């Protein structure tokens, strides 16, 4: 079965530190990749997505992610985090195959806490 793994469950950083959150998926076929963010008290929002083309994708609020097909990874990065980046981050994958209905498979989530 397809799965998505996020290696970091809880990350604590100081402001201006660099961020990298790991995401790996287990599927060898065509995939679409997403990062969602959930700020405290708010609903899930799409941060960025990869469908095709340039494997380095840029999202909102200075976030970017790199799709490395050979490593089945889609790590999220930000050069300098802010206190307002404190949130829960979810990696998600859609696999394409017979009967695909756009089903999103989510990772376990990573809680990012940024200290001012």
């Amino acid at each position, binding site marked *: 079965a397809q799965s998505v793994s996020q290696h970091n469950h809880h990350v604590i950083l100081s402001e201006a530190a660099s961020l990298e959150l790991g995401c790996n998926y287990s599927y060898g076929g065509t995939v*679409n990749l*997403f990062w*969602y963010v959930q700020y405290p008290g*708010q*609903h*899930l*929002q*799409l941060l960025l*997505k990869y*469908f095709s083309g340039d494997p380095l994708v840029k999202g909102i609020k200075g976030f970017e992610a790199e799709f490395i097909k050979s490593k089945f990874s889609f790590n999220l990065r930000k050069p300098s985090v802010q206190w307002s980046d404190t949130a829960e981050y*979810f990696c998600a994958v*859609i696999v394409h195959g017979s009967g695909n*209905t*756009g*089903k*999103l498979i*989510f*990772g*376990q*989530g990573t809680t990012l806490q940024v200290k001012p």
Partner: protein
Amino acid sequence: SAVISQKPSRDICQRGTSLTIQCQVDSQVTMMFWYRQQPGQSLTLIATANQGSEATYESGFVIDKFPISRPNLTFSTLTVSNMSPEDSSIYLCSVLGLAGFYEQYFGPGTRLTVT
């Protein structure tokens, strides 16, 4: 992007009772989904709500426990039936973006506590 509202935003229910959660979208969408997010865990797809036909349930979820209605292209309900404390979760609906590309937009969620 679609604007999605859910009612109620939260509820505390007694075991053995049922709760119906409503999901309203501000535009017509073809696909709507219901997810569960248990405490400290990730999101798990319960079912895909199909307009004009029965919902498609994921493994581990059954219609008797989670009946779903989808009367039109902007509205769906999820009922959590015969609740137990294990059903305490956040329930979210989502829709597939109008532009396709499998982007999903999520509602604010319904926080359910079963006592």
